[in-house]
């Protein structure tokens, strides 16, 4: 290798955005549509679902039949990346655990996400139990932006008038599948309210939008959609923003750090081109980070200078701290009453048809906050792993002759059983609030760099009793619902030795909180506009600014916050403050 050469661009962009997911994509969309010249850097390749989605492919078109060998969620899933990326390690401290999912591609994790689109509620922003800091904004302040996101992107659901699960501007929700009607009835008997799901899938054509088609019900949102019938930042934000002529994207651009001048102001970024290893420096008047909660924290911590000794935007020392993912636990089983069921196409949408928002009063419980429940089941397209649960099913109920035989087996009767049990399975999963704690954090590992020479993140994360008790409550509740709908549970019931099946931190891929907002520069990195307290032309628009997540998946709030921040950038530019 020869001497290092850094190519510097003479051009100064109005705004430079790092990352093309929900946060970066929304900021780019708003700014480009306002006529601002925007440059966006993406660490992965270009991705357009029209061309690259694996939608409508059959399992036999994959030699591994959809197994997750190269993609965490299976061969047809849209995400490029995963829990581990070659040459891009991360580490953990003191034998704690954190799993970091990275999707390196245009649109990031929004290409494969579950499209579950929930607003956070008033109590999530301003909690009354004193266990986490309030946000510097209220639900009422963010509500207009949630409304605009609903109209612009489209989300189905029903207005329910629930206190902490705000209504929205909804398209018609998909009707429940057969299994889901059984779940709904069983849950009602168990005292758990079930309502229509809320998902960003176009169950109807989106008024005024001719670039996106309505859903055609293949149930494959996770593969990304060729007609843009669901929300991906690639299809709905970045590609339309490029079409304005004001946004340019550089792909395979791995950002090393934010550059600053003597006054401590951001002047641009440096990045390495992953395709040829060439180093670049770009100039911009405003830098916006939307690289994902942990990656944005990493960039800031790696941008330390004489003016910003502990990292950029980190005079408070909070960058990397307060990392939190949603809690998660799940249970599966089957409905014997659905054996030998009639066949028809029930693929539906690829997001949830039904769900349960948090329904209980914490005063009567031994843990704070709560969780929502996502449900599924039915006659899905077979894929790798199909039939894996048969030995726990065909020995649990009487056969055609009325006799109960041992589970498993082989031959004609087994083959008959695969048919009989097809479509009877049901599953449920809780997604709950983990508390934002200073003690759970990511930091720069002092000893390790990735293949680009960029210091990597080291995680330190442990669950506390609050989260473990919540998982126990989930598992107890799921068993009761299964019982009430007459299902046979096939999952192993997890006990205290496995934290009641509580997933490892990071597994739910709802990590937030690492560059948090706040009114006090001593205890927060960003102000209420997601603008760095100590660097006025630097903004963060992904999930890093979250003070405390609710039991709501993060994406809809990322979109609303990013839109609000982008409008603030426009306003501040007009006032010549940045």
């Amino acid at each position, binding site marked *: 290798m020869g001497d290092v050469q850094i190519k510097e661009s003479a051009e100064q962009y109005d705004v430079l955005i790092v990352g093309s997911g929900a946060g970066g994509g929304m900021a780019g969309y708003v700014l480009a549509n306002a006529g601002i010249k925007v440059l966006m850097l993406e660490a992965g*390749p270009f991705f357009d679902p*029209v*061309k*690259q*989605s*694996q939608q409508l*492919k*059959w*399992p036999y*078109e*994959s*030699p*591994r*039949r959809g*197994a997750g*060998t*190269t993609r965490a969620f299976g061969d047809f899933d849209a995400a490029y990346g995963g829990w581990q990326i070659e040459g891009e390690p991360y580490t953990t401290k003191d034998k704690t655990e954190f799993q970091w999912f990275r999707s390196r591609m245009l649109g990031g994790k929004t290409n494969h996400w579950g499209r579950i689109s929930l607003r956070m509620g008033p109590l999530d922003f301003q909690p009354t139990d004193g266990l986490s800091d309030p946000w510097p904004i209220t639900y009422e302040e963010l509500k207009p932006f949630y409304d605009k996101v609903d109209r612009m992107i489209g989300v189905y659901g029903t207005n329910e008038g629930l206190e902490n699960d705000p209504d929205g501007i909804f398209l018609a929700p998909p*009707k*429940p*599948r057969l299994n889901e*009607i059984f779940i709904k*009835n069983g849950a009602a008997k168990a005292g758990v309210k079930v309502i229509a799901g809320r998902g960003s899938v176009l169950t109807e054509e989106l008024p005024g939008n*001719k670039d*996106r*088609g*309505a859903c*055609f*019900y*293949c*149930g*494959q949102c996770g593969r990304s959609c*060729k*007609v843009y019938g669901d929300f991906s930042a690639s299809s709905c934000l970045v590609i339309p923003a490029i079409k304005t002529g004001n946004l340019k994207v550089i792909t395979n651009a791995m950002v090393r750090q934010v550059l600053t001048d003597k006054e401590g102001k951001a002047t641009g970024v440096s990045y390495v081109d992953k395709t040829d290893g060439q180093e670049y420096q770009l100039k911009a008047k405003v830098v916006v980070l939307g690289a994902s909660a942990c990656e944005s924290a990493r960039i800031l911590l790696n941008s330390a200078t004489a003016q910003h000794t502990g990292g950029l935007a980190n005079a408070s020392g909070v960058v990397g701290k307060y990392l939190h993912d949603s809690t998660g636990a799940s249970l599966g089983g089957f409905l014997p*009453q659905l054996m030998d*069921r*009639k*066949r*028809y*196409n029930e*693929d539906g*949408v690829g997001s949830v048809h039904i769900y349960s928002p948090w329904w209980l009063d914490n005063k009567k419980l031994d843990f704070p906050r709560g969780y929502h429940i996502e449900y599924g089941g039915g*006659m899905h*397209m*077979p*894929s*790798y*792993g*199909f*039939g*894996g649960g*048969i*030995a726990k099913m065909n020995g649990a109920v009487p056969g055609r002759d009325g006799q109960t035989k041992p*589970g*498993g*087996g*082989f*031959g*004609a009767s087994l083959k008959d059983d695969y*048919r009989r049990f*097809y479509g009877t399975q049901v599953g449920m999963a809780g997604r709950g609030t983990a508390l934002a704690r200073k003690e759970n954090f990511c930091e720069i590992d002092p000893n390790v760099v990735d293949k680009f020479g960029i210091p990597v993140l080291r995680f330190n994360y442990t669950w506390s009793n609050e989260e473990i008790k919540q998982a126990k409550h989930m598992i107890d509740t799921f068993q009761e619902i299964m019982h009430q709908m007459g299902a046979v549970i096939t999952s192993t019931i997890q006990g205290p030795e496995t934290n009641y099946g509580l997933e490892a931190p990071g597994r739910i891929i709802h990590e937030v909180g690492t560059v948090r907002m706040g009114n006090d520069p001593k205890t927060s990195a960003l102000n209420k506009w997601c603008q760095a307290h100590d660097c006025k032309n630097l903004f963060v628009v992904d999930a890093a600014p979250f003070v405390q997540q609710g039991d709501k998946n993060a994406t809809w709030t990322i979109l609303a916050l990013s839109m609000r921040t982008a409008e603030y950038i426009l306003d501040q530019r007009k006032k010549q403050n940045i």
Partner: protein
Amino acid sequence: MNRRQSIKALSVTALSAGLLLDACKTDTSKNTSEVDHTNLEYAAGLQDFEKERLEKLYAQPNFFNEHERNTLVILGDLIIPADAVSGSASDAKVIDFIEFIVKDIPDHQVPLRGGLKWLDMQCFSLYGKSFSGCSKDQQVEMLELIAYPGKTKPEFHQGEEFFNRVRNLVATGFYTSKVGIKDLGYVGNTPNKWKGVPAEVLQQYNLKDE
């Protein structure tokens, strides 16, 4: 009915149908169904490292020798035989899937190779022959000892583990094939309009659709 007609026939909105047809046009894949080393159209949308990995796997010699392969074919057809509805595991070329997947997921290799050997040695001590050399009755008798998790005698537990793995791989290989998908009666993966559970099905279970 070709894809264009099928999309038209279903009540997909005009806008969706148009966009989907455009998407199908730009898709470089031919209308093929099975994939082998001469046919990597499936790779449209794959990342470079995924394509390279696939080429590398296809270039490898077979993992299973002829005896192991024959034994797996016999096991496959004992697990999923032909019946009035559909063909057998070998009709669906399940062995080709298993041969590929052990290269793709090497964790399968030792348990399968060792398990096949275990099976042969058991058959040799019981019947004086390898599994594939046994009569069908003997083969069935052998499988009865290892096919029911929870009921297996302690001395056959390794066999139970092996057979669970084979059963599951055969089930995946069969039910993800065209033959198996038809057998199951899965009728999705095609543009349509979801209108809720059909009325006669609601009636069958005495349910209401809200």
